């Protein structure tokens, strides 16, 4: 089947060929009728069994198609019927065949017998393993301390989140951690503070200009392929130009019409200056003025647009392009030119990611980005940054425990982070070490490698090894991971190729795609999906998991009960096709300006909070008195927003008690001592830099996810070594030449690596990629073998592995250091010294 957006219109020609009666043998075929969803063995010509499913190499979770030959998964491609991917796929997703058959994959439960980290294990049965876990959970529940069972995941989404998370909440522990602050949690918090629910979709299908601050969207993104391929097509087919601000010439910057090098941590100043240009040149007129009706930039929620404009002008008065040039190194003329271009090209889309947000001032950078979009009206309409749409499954219910208790170790030290709405993953181990808020009796890691994924690796390993701090550590992992090696008990998880899930990731078509993951093959050895294991644990503990009896059952119920999917044929349909979307649905846009009927905002129990202009439904008289902003969890009771020109749906809040405006004057930030208006903030460490200091930044490569793909042999073959990028000018000043060994030193440690002296990076910076420098994770990743693995498990490539260098891991010298507003780990702020070894 051909893709709907096949720009070459192969379809027409193919149909002609068939209709004209020409046989489809290779000699006569003029065009090929099938884009994909079919594969054949090159050796035998036999058709391979095609199974629609979904990827899980990264959080994008693309619908895919697995091909099985004689019971073995041999190939993964895209599912051509997916409206998200439109039939294309990345390198990482296809290399998942390597995960399934990694010779270092763990296949049996194991219990530690030697010292932690010594690599001495004994094989145990699932019964023994689960008894051990259940006994410990029961002991804590009986003692009234269920919160001492801490569950920390790295990646867990959709139905996996519902069943696994649901189990722990049903048991009674709320001590559940995630890893979002290590990714982009800061961006999400900034979005929650401004336009409510997080996640922005960049509408490349309809845009005319892309302004990119620090996103390597063509190589890596939380919605990578669904987003990236649309951008490439827009550039190639419609001549859409993209300008990318980045410290480094990423492949995204290389494919842009223009790369603008910017000093690390200063994108926010450039954006502030662009707002200055828009305001001083009147470029807000028209669309910007209209949008400002729905924007809050003053304490007074009834301010008119003229007052708002005057307020913004006053606030950004000093953010001149000349001022920003001094800070960022970007010429003032370039800032002015791009501000005009962004404002005048309708529609334009503003793209931002870790280059903007993984800094001390990241929250403010993202808020400034939202302000620039607001004053130009480039927001939440086709071709701009839009509020994202995903699939809304109707999940089976798992009843929560009557009382859920939690250890306060997931949100950083007291006073450290103002609004940790996505938690502060990087501070969890330091908080456990500190102990002031208690320590877990059992720490369960699920798809989570705290020693590798956080900063300050050395400290993390010390904490994991310390049995006084961490009495019992369980790891659920398909592989012998860099943190799993320090566990007391290992449960062999399945790679995603052997799992069920009902999936829901954001759809750039703004419609929402329902899709499922189903196993390509049976689990190898005794590996089990943890989302099935929790059903067993629930039985042992007498925990009620609701109607479902297994994870497959849970997925079946979701498919059979979700409106739309159900009528299409439910579970049977989804197993056959993998994907479903409502063909009549229109792309969602402009959720904020829908008038709300009086019958809704004047309904019984709904009151107006005059300070915020929010119509809400307080739970009690006392809450009503306290007011909307000050009442805990009030955002859940939001109904509508009163504005001078009417009552509207507004930008509904999520996670924090913001108003229904696009809130750019934030009483929440004011209450925590920050400037309520988006403001340029200096990075304290950069202020103190000496003339010889450099800034260390990190990045990702198109063929790798952050931590979990270096054991895919095909990917490791392409990218296994990560010399430090350094500009020739910066290098020469230190006597460094290409390929030299260099020492990089920060406040928390030093490391030796090699220099890649390249013109493709701004002077004053050293950039080291993630992915490399594993000390475990199997032989392809680190050269180190996992316990209880055969020589090669029939992997005929094993003896052909030719690379011996595995690169370095920059996190050893990056301190754990959260953004003070949102808790985002500041990957791009570390000050270092670089010398030739």
């Amino acid at each position, binding site marked *: 089947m051909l893709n709907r957006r096949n720009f070459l219109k192969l379809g027409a020609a193919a149909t002609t060929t068939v209709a004209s009666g020409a046989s489809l043998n290779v000699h006569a075929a003029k*065009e090929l009728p099938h884009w994909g969803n079919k594969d054949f063995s090159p050796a035998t010509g036999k058709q391979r069994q095609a199974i629609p499913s979904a990827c899980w190499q990264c959080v994008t979770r693309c619908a895919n198609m697995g091909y099985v030959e004689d019971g073995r998964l041999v190939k993964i491609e895209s599912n051509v019927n997916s409206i998200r991917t439109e039939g294309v796929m990345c390198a990482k997703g296809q*290399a998942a065949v390597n995960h399934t058959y990694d010779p270092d994959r763990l296949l049996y439960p194991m219990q530690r017998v030697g010292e932690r980290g010594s690599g001495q294990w004994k094989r145990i049965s699932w019964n023994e393993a689960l008894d051990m876990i259940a006994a410990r959970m029961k002991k804590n529940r009986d003692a009234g301390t269920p919160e001492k069972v801490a569950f920390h995941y790295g990646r867990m989404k959709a139905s996996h989140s519902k069943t696994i998370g649901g189990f722990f909440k049903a048991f009674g522990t709320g001590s559940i951690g995630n890893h979002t602050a290590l990714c982009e949690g800061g961006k999400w918090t900034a979005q929650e503070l401004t336009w409510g629910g997080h996640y922005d979709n960049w509408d490349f299908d309809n845009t005319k200009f892309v302004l990119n601050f620090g996103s390597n969207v063509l190589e890596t993104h939380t919605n990578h392929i669904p987003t990236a391929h649309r951008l490439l097509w827009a550039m190639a087919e419609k001549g859409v130009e993209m300008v990318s601000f980045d410290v480094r010439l990423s492949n995204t910057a290389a494919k842009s*019409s223009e790369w603008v090098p910017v000093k690390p941590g200063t994108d926010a100043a450039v954006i502030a200056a662009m707002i200055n240009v828009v305001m001083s040149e009147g470029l807000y007129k028209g669309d910007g003025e209209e949008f400002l009706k729905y924007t809050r930039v003053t304490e007074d929620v009834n301010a008119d647009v003229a007052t708002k404009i005057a307020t913004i002008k006053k606030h950004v008065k000093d953010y001149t392009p000349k001022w920003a040039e001094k800070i960022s190194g970007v010429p003032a003329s370039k800032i002015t030119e791009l501000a005009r271009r962004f404002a005048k090209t309708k529609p334009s889309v503003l793209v931002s990611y870790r280059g903007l947000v993984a800094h001390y001032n990241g929250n403010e950078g993202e808020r400034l980005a939202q302000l620039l979009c607001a004053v130009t009206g480039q927001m939440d309409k086709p071709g701009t940054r839009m509020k994202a749409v995903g699939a809304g499954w109707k999940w089976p219910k798992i009843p929560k425990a009557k009382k859920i208790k939690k250890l306060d170790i997931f949100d950083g030290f007291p006073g450290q982070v103002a609004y940790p709405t996505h938690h502060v993953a990087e501070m969890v181990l330091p908080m456990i070490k500190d102990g002031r808020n208690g320590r877990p009796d059992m720490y369960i890691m699920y798809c989570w490698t705290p020693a590798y994924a956080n900063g300050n690796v050395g400290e993390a390993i010390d904490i994991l090894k310390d049995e006084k701090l961490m009495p019992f550590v369980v790891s659920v992992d398909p592989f012998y991971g860099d943190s799993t090696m320090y566990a007391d008990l290992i449960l062999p998880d399945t790679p995603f190729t052997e799992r069920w899930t009902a999936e829901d990731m954001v759809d750039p078509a703004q419609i929402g795609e329902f899709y499922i993951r189903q196993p390509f093959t049976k689990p190898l050895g005794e590996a089990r999906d943890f989302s099935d294991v929790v059903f067993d644990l629930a039985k042992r503990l007498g925990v009620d998991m609701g109607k479902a009896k297994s994870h497959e059952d849970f997925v079946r119920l979701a498919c059979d009960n979700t409106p739309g999917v159900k009528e299409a044929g439910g579970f049977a349909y989804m197993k056959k096709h993998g994907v479903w979307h409502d063909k009549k649905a229109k792309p969602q846009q402009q959720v904020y300006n829908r008038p709300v009927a009086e019958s809704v905002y004047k309904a019984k129990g709904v009151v107006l909070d005059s300070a915020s202009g929010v119509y809400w439904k307080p739970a009690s008289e006392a809450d009503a008195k306290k007011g909307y902003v000050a009442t805990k969890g009030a955002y859940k009771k939001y109904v509508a927003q009163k504005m001078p020109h009417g009552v509207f749906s507004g930008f509904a809040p999520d996670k924090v008690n913001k108003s229904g405006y696009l809130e750019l004057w934030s009483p929440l930030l004011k209450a925590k001592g920050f400037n309520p208006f988006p403001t340029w903030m200096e990075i304290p460490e950069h202020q103190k830099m000496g003339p010889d200091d450099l800034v260390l930044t990190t990045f990702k490569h*198109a063929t790798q996810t952050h931590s979990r793909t270096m054991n895919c042999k095909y990917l490791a*073959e392409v990218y296994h070594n990560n010399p430090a990028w350094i500009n020739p000018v910066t290098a020469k000043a230190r006597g460094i030449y290409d390929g030299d060994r260099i020492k990089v030193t920060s406040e928390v440690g030093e490391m030796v690596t090699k220099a890649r002296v390249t013109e493709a990076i701004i002077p004053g910076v050293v950039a080291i990629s993630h992915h490399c420098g594993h000390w475990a994770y199997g032989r392809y990743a680190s050269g180190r073998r996992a316990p209880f693995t055969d020589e090669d498990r029939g992997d005929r490539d094993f003896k052909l592995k030719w690379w011996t260098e595995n690169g370095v891991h920059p996190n050893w010298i990056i301190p754990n250091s959260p953004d003070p507003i949102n808790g985002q780990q500041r990957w791009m702020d570390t000050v270092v010294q670089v010398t030739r070894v």
Partner: protein
Amino acid sequence: MTTHSTPTISRRQMLKRMGAATAGVTVVAAAPMAARAAKKQEVRYAMVIDTRRCSGCQACSIACKAEFEVPLGAVRSWVEHIEVGQYPNVERRMLPRLCNQCSEPPCVEVCPTEPKKATYKRESDGIVVVDENLCIGCAKCLEACPYDARFMNPHKGDPVKTKGNGVADKCDFCLHRISQGVQPSCVNTCQGKARIFGDLNDPTSEVAKLVDEYDTTVLLRGKKTKPSVFYIGADYLEAKKDPKADQYFRLDTHRKEPSSKRWA
């Protein structure tokens, strides 16, 4: 700042629109046309690679690896990254590579097996293939290929006949897929749709249209191999000697051995 334009209209298109299809342009386009006319065959399979659509993501490389279980150390398809320029005017160009399926394949010429050559060009569609049952593992074709597109596959062939060398292997445009009407594995994975596959002898095919419409480049034109792989947006490969020959240049092949054979 680096400004590299992404032209949406080729020079040739522009000239056509201006009604000035000059002789100079015809000469540029003549090479592929001539190549097409060189041999009378029903079908000539070809690939056009629009480098403007390539982001260097390597999905094609991995798709190929998995499709054929290509041994580590070897590649049938790969992507080269070429960094040139001086900060801040620096570019990174992406060059997807594969067997050129030459109309005049030097690899076939040197194949010593008798009476039938183990590596040969299929008269029916122009694809150069290796018959692993005939190959004796002498590796002469690897030497002869100016593009470094071949490798010895240790997992194929008769170990006695090949003296344990394995057999020569390389891209065959996914013959097993296209013969069933399915796009090659590297084509259907490409997120930019940079790879376009089809029959160059069919004037209505997209590959024929693109080759006619654009000033395409082939690798090592001077070797007169008449490749069936055409590049859009890779004119730099055929540029005359760069006046600033000492400028920064870095090539990442992402292959085991940096090849001694180059495209220009």
